[in-house]
């Protein structure tokens, strides 16, 4: 039924969206300064400031490219949109449909290929990203399996899976590097199926939540996962996937208080469930 609503929405959005869209005018981020301050030397696509419903600015870090490929899953297997890079930055625009956007930049040279990738979520109607993730989009890939659902995110202490693929084939028993903005560096290995299980480190500062779309979840860190290999011809491939992860599920939460208030509520209801004397005898 929602698919129907989605279709109608798509048809109507053409007329509707124009009036909602605020004037484009995000200041161009200083991406070179951002790169200098980046927490890692691995290839990344780093959000540059707070995006909104219409678009989000990004910077390239640790690679150079003329354009960034953007897929949003709504176009099926259509070729990706090519977004030009200016002064090492670009802006991903929200379409009328499409929620998960896969962003990917590639720098190819004689020596090899460097790829940076990330995922951006817009709160729009659109298909699930499963097919888009499954599609081979680069030679060497880090494929989230799955991406966090809307209103979720990667969190410290949680284990998430990624598939490492080279030319469509899983890469077995391969070391993959994790670096976080809190300075944690770790190496994880893929299993016999090319699946990497990453447990996010408990290095997220316990910040007060900022409100808004944060939904009271508190602070977050950035991370980059990167894998590199050399093929038979001696060509080098390096691919990164970067994103954010939040504080652990139980950060800023109290089980004791939870159980206490549960018990309090139960206690208030107790008079209802005990038999009064006259009932017993009657």
């Amino acid at each position, binding site marked *: *039924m*929602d698919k*129907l*609503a989605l279709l*109608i*929405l798509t048809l*109507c*959005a053409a007329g*509707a*969206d124009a*009036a*909602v869209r*605020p004037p484009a005018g995000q200041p161009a981020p200083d991406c070179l300064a951002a790169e200098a301050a980046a927490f890692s030397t691995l290839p990344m696509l780093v959000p540059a400031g707070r995006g909104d*419903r219409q678009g989000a600015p990004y910077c390239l870090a640790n690679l150079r490219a003329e354009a960034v490929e953007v897929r949003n899953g709504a176009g099926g297997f259509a070729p990706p949109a090519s977004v030009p890079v200016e002064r090492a930055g670009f802006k991903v625009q929200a379409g009328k449909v499409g*929620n998960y956007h896969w962003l990917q930049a590639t720098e190819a040279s004689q020596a090899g290929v460097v790829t940076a990738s990330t995922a951006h979520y817009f*709160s729009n*109607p659109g*298909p*699930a*990203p*499963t097919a888009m993730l499954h599609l081979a989009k680069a030679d060497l890939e880090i494929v989230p399996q*799955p*991406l966090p*659902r*809307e*209103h979720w995110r990667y969190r410290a202490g949680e284990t998430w899976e990624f598939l490492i693929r080279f030319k469509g084939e899983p890469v077995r028993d391969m070391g993959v590097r994790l670096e976080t903005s809190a300075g944690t560096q770790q190496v994880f290995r893929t299993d016999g199926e090319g699946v990497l299980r990453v447990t996010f480190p408990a290095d997220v500062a316990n910040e*007060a*939540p900022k*409100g*808004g*779309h944060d*939904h*009271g*979840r*508190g602070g977050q860190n950035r991370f980059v996962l990167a894998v590199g290999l050399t093929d038979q011809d001696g060509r080098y491939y390096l691919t990164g996937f970067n994103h954010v992860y939040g504080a652990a*599920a*139980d950060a*800023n*939460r*109290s*089980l004791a*208080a*939870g*159980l*206490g*208030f*549960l018990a*309090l*509520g*139960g*206690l*208030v*209801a*107790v008079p*209802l*469930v*005990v*038999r*009064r004397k006259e*009932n017993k005898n009657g």
Partner: protein
Amino acid sequence: MADAVPRLTLGRLRLAVQLVMLFVTVYGGSLVGYYTAEKITGSLPALSCAYDKLNGAHCQLITTQHQLHHRVGEQIAQLGHFALNMVLPLAFSFLAFYLFFVVLNKAFCGWICPLGTVQELIYRLGRRLKRPFRNLSETAARRLRPVKWALLLGLVFALPVTAGLGVTPASTGDVFCQICPSRLATTLLTGDTEQIMVRSSDALVFVFGALANTLFGFVVVAALAARQPFCRICPLMALNAAFQRLSPMRLVKTESDKCEKCGICRQACPMDIPEIHHEHGRQAFAEDCTLCGRCAEYCPQDGVIQLKFGPLALFKSSRAYYKARFKGETPAGEAKPLRRMERPAAGTADA
């Protein structure tokens, strides 16, 4: 012979549907898919919770709160004026809601809602544990009604908009979810204890969490003695009531002079609805009705109460059915001792 307990009573059919739907709404993600876009809908007229990581659908209340918060409130704050198209996504989510609703009407409450089912199961447990039966007086049942409308208008509609406008704190943007007992019930059913921990990130969020847990604790214990305690104040019941005349599915009662002295329908009604006893015609199908059909099962008059879809009578009260049904269970839901004596094995388990 006509008095033999029918094998397939409406009550048993409903319990079977409820158990299947409890599975779909609580664990059904494995059947439908993991991403929000793969869920059966985000506009379900029942409290299937988006916080449950394994669920198969989301309720309309979370969609409404989010759209009013981000698409309406925040957009007005950003643009400085209201535009009709801000409510378009909301209109489409209500359209999706209505496409479901038109088929089943408030049977979403009586047959599908996981929290409704959980409360009924606890009440059944209460019968086993020989807890007393508590129902609301006619006056109390009527007096309680405005609460659900207040919760719908205040917590689901108004506060998310004011949060988007920046008038109330951001944490009021999804305030109903923060106190919703279905969030606790369904996540606990999946073995996830995260939601039951109270968030202490700011004072207001803590207060909402404390309220949620207190309410949930109350509902769980009260449901041992009273039928569907939360449903009496559920804002989704109010939303469903706003649409209830717009569906061909309905409860129909014809006038009968036997009714005034009888009133078994009201005893059988899990929502203690006075109108089912005293009124007929449209009035008998009251705003609190969940279309569970118990009143029709327990009405001893042929054809006086019916569940109808358009011109089609899906179930009609009948004296023969009533007598047989009464043998198995009283209107208040107590299993009859007679049956326990007939089945020694079950009898020992009950003792």
